[in-house]
C-alpha cells in the first residue's frame, strides 16, 4: 500500500468509520480518537496491508477498539445503558430515523455493531465475521435477533406515536 493509497483511504473511509463509531458510542470526541487510532495503526502497517483490504482492516481495528472502549465505559458507568433505555422511551419521535437512532443504542454492543456494518456498509456475513472475529453463524444470529428487537421497538413506538 502506497502513501497515495493510504491518503485515498482517508478520503474514502474516514467518514464511514467515524459514522460507525459515533453512532455506536454516541461520543464524538471518543469516536474521533478511535478513528485516529485506527488510521494510525493502518499507517504503521502501511507496508503490510494490501490496498484492497484497507477498508476491512480499518473496520476491524475500529470494531475492536470500539468494544474495548465500551467495556471501559461500562466499567465506569454501569447504569448508562439502562438510563439510556428509559430516556429513549420518554422521547417524542418525529420520524422513523429518529426512532431507530434512539432504539439502536439499546441493542447489545455486538448486535449493534454487526447490524450497522450490514446496513451502513453492506458487508456480507462472511466479511462481518472476518472483521469481528465471530463465526458466520453468530453474525447471522446477531443480525436476526437485532432485527427482531428493532422491529418490536419500532412497532411499539410507532403505535404510541
Amino acid at each position, binding site marked *: 500500500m502506497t502513501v497515495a493509497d493510504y491518503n485515498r483511504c482517508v478520503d474514502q473511509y474516514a467518514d464511514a468509520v467515524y459514522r460507525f463509531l459515533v453512532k455506536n458510542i454516541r461520543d464524538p470526541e471518543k469516536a474521533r480518537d478511535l478513528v485516529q487510532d485506527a488510521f494510525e495503526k493502518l499507517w504503521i502497517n502501511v507496508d503490510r496491508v494490501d490496498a484492497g483490504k484497507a477498508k476491512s482492516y480499518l473496520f476491524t481495528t475500529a470494531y475492536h477498539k470500539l468494544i474495548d472502549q465500551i467495556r471501559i465505559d461500562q466499567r465506569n458507568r454501569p447504569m448508562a445503558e439502562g438510563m439510556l433505555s428509559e430516556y429513549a422511551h420518554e422521547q417524542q419521535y418525529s420520524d422513523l430515523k429518529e426512532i431507530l437512532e434512539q432504539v439502536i443504542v439499546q441493542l447489545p454492543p455486538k448486535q449493534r455493531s454487526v447490524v450497522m456494518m450490514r446496513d451502513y456498509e453492506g458487508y456480507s456475513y462472511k466479511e462481518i465475521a472476518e472483521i469481528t472475529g465471530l463465526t458466520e453463524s453468530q453474525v447471522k444470529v446477531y443480525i436476526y435477533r437485532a432485527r427482531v428487537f428493532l*422491529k418490536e421497538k419500532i412497532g411499539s413506538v410507532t403505535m404510541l406515536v
Partner: protein
Amino acid sequence: MIKIGLDNYEVWFLDFLEGNLNKSRLEELDRFLSLHPEMKEELHEMELLHLPAEKISFKGKSGLKHTPADYAGVTEEDYQCIAFMEGDMNRSEQIRFKDQLKKDKNLKRKLHLFTRTRLVPDASVFYPGRARLKKKRRLVSAWIYPLAAAVVTGLAFWLWPGKTPEVNHPHYLQMAVKESLLDLNKNDITLKNSTIQLPAAPGFMIPGKENRNIQPMAYLPRKSLHHLPVTVRQSDESGVMLAETRLISKADDTYETLYELALRLFRERILGEPAELVKKQQFTLWEVADVGVQKLNNLMDTGIDIEREYNSTGNLKKVNFNSRLLALSLPHR
C-alpha cells in the same frame, strides 16, 4: 485357518453363517458336510439362532430437530421475513414466501416493519479531522529520528569550537595564537608572540584534537594571502580574551571562521534568514532546539511543542515540552 474337523466345526459354521468364508473354504465345508451328513442338522439349528433386525423407529424424531429460526432464537415467521429481506432465501424459498405474503396480511405487515429496521447511513456525519490523518511521506522506523537527532547532536558538540579553531590547510598559513600571549591591558592589542607554521597535512584541526584531521567543510578559494590579522574580542562573562584566526584572501577579502561558517549555514539554510543580517550574531541552543522540533514535526507529522516561560521580571523561568505522549517542564537556573 485350521482345517475343519469334528473338534472345530462350530467355528467354521459361525464363519459360514456370517459370510466370512471364501470360495475354497466353502468347498472345504461342503466336503466336510458330505463326509459327516449328521452335521447338516446342527448347521441348520445354528441358522435358526440368528435374530432378524427389528423395524422399530423413534416417533418423536421431528421434535428433536431444530429449525434455523430456533437457532436464531426467533419465531418462524420472523425468521422468514428477515431471511427474505436479508437475501438469505434461495429462489424456491422466495417464491414460496411471496405466495404466503399474498395470502397472509399479518405476515405482510410484519415484513413491512422489518424492512423499516434497516439503518440508513447518516450522510450529515463527517469526520472532522480528515486532513490531519493524511501523510506526506512513507513511514520510517520510529527509532531513526531519535538516532539521527542523537548523531547530529553528538557531532555538533564534537565539532563545536570551544575556542577559535586553528586552520591547517596547505594553501593557507596556520596561525597558532595563545591567549596568554596577548596583552589584555592595552587598548591597542599587540601580539607578543606568535608562531607561524606551514601545515603538515590538509584539513581543519580542532583544538585539543590535534591528532584528528577532518576534511574541510568548505574550501576557501585558493588565492594567495597577503595579510593575516588577528582580531580579539572579550568574552562577556569570564573576561578571558579569545583569539580568532581569520583568513583574508588577496582578491576579495573573503574570510570566515569555522564558527562563522556554521552560523551562516544555520541562518541561511535552516532558519532561512539573510546571512548579512545575522552574520555577526551568535545562535543559541534554544534556536537549534526550536528548529529541530519544527523539522521533526514536519517530518513525522507530530505535534511536539517547546516553549519558554518567563517570570514577572522578564527572566526565563522554565522551558515546557509538550507532546502527545510526554509533557514536562524544565526549571531554568
